[in-house]
């Protein structure tokens, strides 16, 4: 397993937002977390990336425990993420957003930056080119110089993904990447995610758009009130009576 989550527990006040969740993600798969609002999906992302401390439980990535790390150290360990409520660097250009995502690829430190050494200039050029290539793949190259906040919503979502990919992470956590996209954009996104997976990228996907989930996910974990109630392939999940009762039944059911 690339990522192993064991008995994760997080209380907010007296309420268990995540209550003993365990799962594993294999290398090169798209693993989806689904469940109604408040099921604890985003909380699990925040716990894995250590934006919040778990009350109990462990997260192991590539054989290494993430306990005690700061969020930036989790990123350095190889896990990056996108945010459900977009957290782009709005005042910076589209290209700068991706280049910031590639921060971990650079070596030039604070004091070295003051001197603008040839080594830093070369490093900067390389990161710029790589970021531009990533934008080209995502069809955002034409907007490279625009402020990120000026992009249409759907492209802002794509840019978040580009930024999360820029450092070449081993695992990417995608928090509702299809939210707010129209069906054409969602289809294109699904195609892109599958292509990434086929190139060996591992991803965890939190998503409400069932069409996208069923299309791209290799395995799905269903959460309800912080508890895992089912795990399986899309076909298994769609026919699980427990899942239909808890989730799909009260939402728009997938045919």
């Amino acid at each position, binding site marked *: 397993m690339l990522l192993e989550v064991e008995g994760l527990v997080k209380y907010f006040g007296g309420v268990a937002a995540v209550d003993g969740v365990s799962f594993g993600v294999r290398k090169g798969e798209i693993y989806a977390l689904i469940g109604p609002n408040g099921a604890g999906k985003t909380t699990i992302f925040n716990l894995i990336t250590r934006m919040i401390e778990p009350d109990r439980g462990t997260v192991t990535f590539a054989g290494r425990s993430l306990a005690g790390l*700061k*969020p930036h150290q989790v990123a350095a360990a190889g896990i990056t*993420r996108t945010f459900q409520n977009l957290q782009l660097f*709005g*005042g910076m250009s589209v290209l700068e957003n991706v280049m*910031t995502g590639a921060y971990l690829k650079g070596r030039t430190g*604070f004091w070295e930056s003051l001197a603008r050494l040839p080594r830093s200039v070369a490093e900067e050029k390389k990161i710029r080119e790589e970021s531009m290539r990533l934008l080209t793949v995502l069809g955002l190259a034409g907007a490279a110089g625009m402020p990120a906040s000026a992009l249409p919503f759907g492209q802002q979502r794509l840019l978040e993904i580009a930024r999360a990919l820029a450092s070449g992470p081993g695992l990417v956590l995608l928090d509702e990447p299809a939210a707010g996209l129209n069906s054409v954009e969602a289809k294109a996104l699904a195609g892109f995610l599958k292509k990434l997976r086929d190139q060996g990228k591992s991803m965890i996907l939190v998503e409400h758009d069932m069409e996208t989930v069923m299309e791209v996910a290799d395995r799905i974990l269903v959460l309800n009130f912080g508890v895992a109630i089912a795990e399986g392939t899309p076909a298994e999940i769609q026919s699980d009576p427990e899942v239909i009762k808890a989730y799909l039944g009260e939402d728009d059911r997938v045919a």
Partner: protein
Amino acid sequence: MMRRIVVPAAALALFAAVPLLTGSGYLLGILIVTGIYTIVVTGLGILMGYAGQISLGHAAFFGLGGYAVAILTTSFRWPAPAALVAALVLPGIVAAVIGRPTLKLKELFLAMATLAFGILVHIFFNEGGKITGGPSGLSGVPYFKLGGLVFDRDTEFYYLVLAAVLLVFLAVKNLIDSRTGRALKAVRESEHAAEASGIDTAGLKLRAFVFSAVLAGLAGGLYAFYVTFVNPSPFSFHTSVQFVLMAVIGGLGTLWGPLLGTGVVVFLGEFLRWAVPLVIPDAGGEYQIIFFGMILVVLMVFRPEGLSRMIEMIRKGSVREGESSAS
């Protein structure tokens, strides 16, 4: 593109020509002080504009630089350049010690810590006995010497300060255009996303704080060499507030803002010192502070982004008009 080179080059040429154009020692003196303050405000501007932290004790770092030069050159007979290096290093170390615990905490802890630190240091300058010379300070700081050059007159010192400001500008421009500069901007935009991108936000803020203290120390060292004595009064809380005022008036997160803000505040101060007694004959120095306060309030209400941003917007507006009329 041409503008990017022409405007700074023209500004530099103008500043370089000032001693040739004017015989006024008074004007030169004000410009030297403006240059020295600009160095402090440039560092403070990075701390406030990018790291999103405020320091209410930068006069203390400025003072540490000044006292380091005064003590080392008089009591210990250090050569001037070595004393100036010490004026950079000492405030940097002190800032690292203060910043490490406080910057891990959120929001205004650094402001509180630097406020207390500034007051403590000021007390130390006043009560330091033989070390600091007490309220009357230390005199007899030798002129700055570098190689065969002696900076013993205002004209020479003006060029020394101009060179220092230029170096600081270049270093800061490099910083802002670098990987680190992007990270600083990212912290300003979204701290969560910056962390998620692998940026050590606490470490970055600490470095920005230390850098700002180093610049304040450099300015303090130059100040001591310029006036050739130090006493506690220029390093009080009032000066710290004035530095913040200069940074805000000039515009945070810009390269030219610190120079502009410092220039405006210094020249306005000189103007008020001349003008206020004409209107109110028996007015004391506190009237200047009242006027500063009023100007700051007006600026914050109408132009919270500061003067340099305002100029930028006017310029961009005129460029756009020109383009549309051409098409």
